[in-house]
């Protein structure tokens, strides 16, 4: 095995910085970046400095936030470090564990794999914004408590958002289907059977 960079892995941020101004190129080649991101990409190419900050408006849990962002900042880090929404967790930063799952326009996405600047113009929902009103719980949150569908609780926000999307997608037809469509969210405490039970419970309520 050849020597690689320090951590032994090719790093997203380093890659973008190293290719110089190619934050734009990187973003443009990713699937479905959206119009706003394409505009940003053009702006970034002009700036030529990969470290240049970009002013964007992120809509998170229905609230607009105007931020000056490093093009290399992930949506995950931005939610946690800039907006103080630490309910979204970092479990791998590589799209392998699902702990950072958020809803983008209602679809489940891994916030570690999305650059924050690409989230402009989209509706982002985090665990903090899932409940219909303050001091209430979404049926999925209540079901996770009722079924003891977590132990340490670290993967839980991602599991819950993924589970909500799983039901809405129509992928909670039976236990086997739920298992398959929830397998992108790793739970090392292995609360899986209880997660299945929670999704079954919440599905009934969500569809009522």
């Amino acid at each position, binding site marked *: *095995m050849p*020597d690689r*960079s*320090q*951590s*032994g*892995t090719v*790093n997203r*941020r*380093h890659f973008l*910085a190293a290719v110089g101004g190619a934050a734009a190129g990187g973003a443009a080649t990713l699937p479905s970046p959206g119009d706003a991101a394409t505009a940003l990409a053009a702006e970034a190419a002009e700036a030529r400095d990969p*470290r240049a900050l970009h002013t964007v408006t992120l809509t998170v849990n229905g609230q607009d936030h105007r931020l000056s962002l*490093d093009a*290399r*900042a992930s949506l995950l880090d931005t939610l*946690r*470090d800039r907006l103080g*929404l*630490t*309910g979204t*967790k970092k*479990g*791998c*930063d*590589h799209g*392998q*564990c699902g702990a950072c799952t958020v809803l983008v326009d209602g679809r489940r996405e891994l916030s570690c794999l999305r650059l924050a600047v690409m989230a402009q113009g989209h509706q982002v929902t985090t*665990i*903090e914004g899932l*409940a219909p009103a303050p001091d209430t*719980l979404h049926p999925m*949150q209540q079901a*996770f*408590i009722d079924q*003891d569908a*977590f*132990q*340490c*609780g*670290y*993967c839980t*926000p991602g599991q*819950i958002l993924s589970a909500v999307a799983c039901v809405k997608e129509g992928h909670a037809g039976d236990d086997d289907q*739920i*298992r*398959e469509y*929830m*397998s992108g*969210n*790793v*739970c*090392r*405490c*292995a*609360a*899986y*059977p*209880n*997660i*299945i039970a929670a999704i079954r419970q919440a599905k009934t309520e969500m569809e009522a």
Partner: protein
Amino acid sequence: MGAPVARIDGRLKVTGQARYPADTPLHNLAHAVMVTSTIARGRIRSLDTTAAAAVPGVLLVLTRDRAQGQLTAPKFGTGGSTSIQPLNEERIWHDGQMLAIVVAETQEAAQEAADLVAVTYDHDTPSAGFDTSGVEIVAGAGASPMYPEDPKAGDFDTAFKAAPVVLDATYNTAAQHHNPMELFSTTAEWNNGRLTVYEPSQFVAGWRAQLAKQLDMDAANIRVVSEYIGGAFGSKGPMTPRTAAVALAAKLVQRPVRCVCTRAQGYTTATFRAETRQRIRMGAGRDGKIRAFSHEGWELTSRPDDYVVGGTETTARLYAYGAVHTKVQLVKADRNTPGYMRSPPETPYVFGLECAMDEMAEKLGLDPVEFRRVNDTQADPVSGKRYTSRSLMRCYDEAAAAFGWQRRLDAGVWKTGAMRDGDWLVGLGCATAVYPTQVAPCAARVRLTADGKALVQTAAHEIGTGVRTVAAQTAAQALGLSVEDVTVEMGDSALPAGPVAGGSVSTASVCSAVLKACGGIRDKLYRAATINSGPPATPESFTLRDGMAVLDSGRSAPLSALFQKLGTTQLEDYAEFAPEGSAPGAVEQLRQGNPGIMGGAKGPVLMYAFGAEFVEVRVHARTGEIRVPRMVGAFAAGRIMNPRTARSQLLGGMIWGLGAALHEMTEIDPRRARTVNRDLQDYLVPVNADVEGVEVILVPETDTEVNPAGVKGLGELGNVGTSSAIASAIYHATGRRLRDIPMRLDKLLQLQQT
């Protein structure tokens, strides 16, 4: 106590409000990224930080030069994961060794700069593990205070030679990494010479003591906070050298600093489960009684540190063997130091033993359940000491009935490949689960206020076990309150000293301390209740129930009235619990970082929890794919404080066993001693689709000897034995004995070809 109460911190966890250490909001926080080595053995020739330091926003590149003289090397085995402080070292001891910490204004700048630190090395050829040259082999006995000697009894050689039925087999268990979902991280903040560290930890009292030594400070000026822990499994027990290094970085930049390790860095800068190789020899009579048992183990450890797995401590005592011989040897290679991982000794060694039990049962033509029954014992074959309680065969009987073991007996117990379902070969197997019952010193403070609310404080750790909830249940019952009226504070070294969240000691230790503190409050209330109350009542008849103090039948008073009598609005009691047989000053020792764990085989009686696990496997006849559609485990672990959280722990444990059996293995490049699969894509852990039916049976058991709470602990019981049950079922399905875990389809295909 004993009620299936929902977790009291559940709402915080499902709303994202539970604050894990890396979530701590701090003003003016700087971000740190670690730089790690790309070779496993050699020396640093040059470490050039010029380009890194030039990145805008970089505040510090902490290397050996900058750290010089400011970090005392840790001590291995006293809460430290290794004896090496890498920032003091020129030598590279293992792959992915910490070389530098880059601190910057933003995560992006820190990462960019970390990638620009240029390192050159003088390379040495490393030894990767068991089958590479250059390893050093040393005796396990005496290498660690945890493993003073190899258990032995009688004359094994003679008994083995004379036995009519013998087995001699070798088993291998893989290196594994805990991979808790929460990444390792350290956040350090200084305030007028006082240090606060926010880090996921299983032992805040011990870490404070460790930091005091490594930073040459008074422990009174250090606080370690770990309110919620995103999974640990042993990985956050011993403190790693990064913690003191990040604290130093924060001191140098005069700002709070947070360093979140990458998933890959977690594989090499923390501990892991060492791979083992085991040879088991067993001799039995035709009556099925074992007459001779030998268990030899080889375990991987690092060059500088002698970590001992030592599972022979448990396997030597599990059955009525007759003569017993054991021997543990350490194989020292150029790897990071291994450490505790969920049931550290039992998981690998009981795999070997229980596989051997299955093979021996076949040689004897016995039902594997009956073979265990014939060799069941209520006393240690090595020392003769009795078990305080041992419900092993009850577990077997309950699990066998629920599982439908009779199906295998009906099909002919040793007729392999007999239960085919289309292309799927079906097999049923079973094995024993066992884990020592341990307990540790613990202090707790309980405050009861006149409005009927209680606060429980102890520096124990909620790693997902549910200990916060059972502590609330314990106080609620003792003080006659509802669980909702109890608040529990844990995970902060400023609280009364709590035990390490290891060795499955938390529930027993914490509940014993909380009961004691509640007892102190009760005594004060009893005295208040008996003032001017007519004929004397006995303390025994005095109970606290539903917010009332009941003096005896007929006389009761609301709590508020007793508080009024006492002329106070709150009562507080601080209690120190030390297990029977502890040395004097055990709680003070705990504050100094000595966990003081007692129990298992260490005392005058043996304390163990038992279980029996049954599994069904399906092996695809053409592809060799292995599925586990069903697992049933029955466990007897003394008093169950909360069946809901207990079930979840055992369920998770059994799925851990499934992962160990079929998925998990850290792959080490044999030429370069580097970790190959250091992420969650290539290191396989069970996902939802891998798990189907899992059933947990809690077998009632009362044991008043183990500790005042009567609790045996079960966080580490569930994953012991599972992988041997699966091996046994694979054999039943296919007629092929797999003796190495993980058991993947390539091994079945290899066997098919031979």
